């Protein structure tokens, strides 16, 4: 990859995903993985080697992949259905809706290489619509881990939780977040930084950018709170009530501007305490470009987040 953030001290979250899944599988024979020829891109080689009978590769066939996940759950297994999120949520959306959500099966959907991780491969391979597609499926807990620690927590929680889950992973290297004493509770945002002038609400790969932006804003005299909203559904409404009290909100996500984290926050604030909300994300199909280019042109940078924070504060 050619993007600017790839450097020492960064982690590919897929490593935490497969290590955690192998650990869980060692203790629980019900854990299995279902893939669409995506053993490599899901980094499931180690799992396949250790548990070949529990790695179900259906080939390039996303509809049957998700249906098989529901069937495995019917048969008492705990399936993790892992595939590039663009195909998992796009190609198989009706199976996700009917077989997983509506039927209410205990299926864990793991969207790999989400957002614009496939950068130059273009919008067919980008998965920026997934939040908007899945948010109305209310019984699917929708988790967007921001770093390897959160990935491990999310996978462990999902395995223990009875019910459908969507975990959105990325192959984009990210730093380990420095949030002392944090605990992972689905549906409860993590307060990454205290602040009073504006609240930056971020998820996934861009949380660290929001934290850096808040740090710089502090030295420039603006006090920005940072929420790591690792769960998009259910949304942490208590944290949003508190965020509203800062009088201005910025949402930051590697996803479409319509219907994602920003949309969810705007729905909440419009219904409770309207405050200015600036939303950062992608406004539709993206042109050819590497990750750094795509992030920069949509303001998903430290400078872009700071500018959005100032716009939000100016609208108070």
């Amino acid at each position, binding site marked *: 990859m050619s993007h600017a953030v790839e450097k020492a001290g960064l982690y590919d979250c897929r490593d935490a995903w497969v290590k955690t899944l192998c650990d869980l599988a060692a203790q629980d024979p019900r854990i*299995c993985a*279902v893939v669409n020829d995506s053993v490599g891109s899901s980094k499931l080689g180690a799992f396949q080697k250790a548990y070949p*009978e*529990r790695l*179900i590769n*259906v*080939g390039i*066939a996303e*509809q*049957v992949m*998700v*249906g*098989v*996940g*529901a*069937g*495995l*759950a*019917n*048969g*008492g*297994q705990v*399936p993790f259905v892992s595939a590039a999120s663009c195909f998992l949520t796009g190609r198989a959306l*009706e*199976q996700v809706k*009917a*077989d997983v959500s*509506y*039927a*209410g*099966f205990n299926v864990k959907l793991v969207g790999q290489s989400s957002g614009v991780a496939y950068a130059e491969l273009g919008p067919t391979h980008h998965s920026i619509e997934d939040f908007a597609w899945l948010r109305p499926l209310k019984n699917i807990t929708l988790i967007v881990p921001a770093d390897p620690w959160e990935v491990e927590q999310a996978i462990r929680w999902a395995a223990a939780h009875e019910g459908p889950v969507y975990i959105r992973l990325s192959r984009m290297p990210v730093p380990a977040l420095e949030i002392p004493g944090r605990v992972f509770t689905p549906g409860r945002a993590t307060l990454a930084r205290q602040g009073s002038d504006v609240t930056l609400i971020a998820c996934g790969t861009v949380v660290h950018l929001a934290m850096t932006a808040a740090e710089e804003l502090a030295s420039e005299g603006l006090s920005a709170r940072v929420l790591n909203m690792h769960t998009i559904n259910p949304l942490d409404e208590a944290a949003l009530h508190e965020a509203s009290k800062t009088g201005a909100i910025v949402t930051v996500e590697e996803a479409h501007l319509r219907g994602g984290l920003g949309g969810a926050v705007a729905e909440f604030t419009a219904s409770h305490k309207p405050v200015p909300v600036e939303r950062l994300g992608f406004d539709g199909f993206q042109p050819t470009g590497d990750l750094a280019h795509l992030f920069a042109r949509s303001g998903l940078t430290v400078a872009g987040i700071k500018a959005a924070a100032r716009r939000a504060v100016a609208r108070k």
Partner: protein
Amino acid sequence: MQNDPIPLIRARALWMRRTAFTMVHRAQLGHPGGDFSATDILATLYFGVMRHDPARPAWEDRDRFIMSKGHATGAIYTALCAAGYFPEDWLPSYMQNGSPLNGHPNRNYVPGVETNTGPLGHGFPVALGIAIAGQITGRDYRTYVLTGDGEQQEGSNWEAAMVAGHRRLANLTLIIDRNRLQQGAGTEETSGLDPLDKKYEAFGFEVQMVDGHDVSALLGALTAKGDRPRCIIANTVKGKGVSFMENVAKWHHGVPNDAEFAQAMAELV
């Protein structure tokens, strides 16, 4: 089996047809044509083939039946009710406000329903997953899935067929309700399916064609075992059992008026 199950299956099938048509007549909603083409298949499964216990719908070792043609709720609800999964006094609520008996089956509302169906092409992949779970766990239950024939036009069935053949899932039986009619026209004039037997043979299935209203033939086909997934093409008649409904496409989701209902009840004896 010590006792001949055929008279019981036939009696249940007759009750199912009369009851389903009563439900459809009352609700003025439903899909009676497809209910009737599938009735003898379901009656044979529930009352002559499957290992199941209505008192324990979540029993881990139960045989599973997936009603992929989920619109034929008149058939699946009457089969489950006759088997004892829920009381008869639920039936008049069919498709009424707040009823557990939705127009398509929901496993969270109705005991015995294995998965929610309705959109076509969903049941076979789920049944495949159930069969794979049996393979992983070593449980010896069998999984049966019934699709419509028009439903075979959905590509997801062929994804599932490839995987089932590849894995040689001998614990899986696909039944196709081959009534040759889909919603508005014949299957062969819409997007032809024949030769369906050759197609499934090519996908690695052991294929058997039967008269889908011949209970004895169905019993033989549904209890047979082999070393590969099985595909039973059940040649059926849409609207079977009521003279004016048989082989008439409009009875896919046609509903009877009072005179038609009375005539059907007179014929279903």
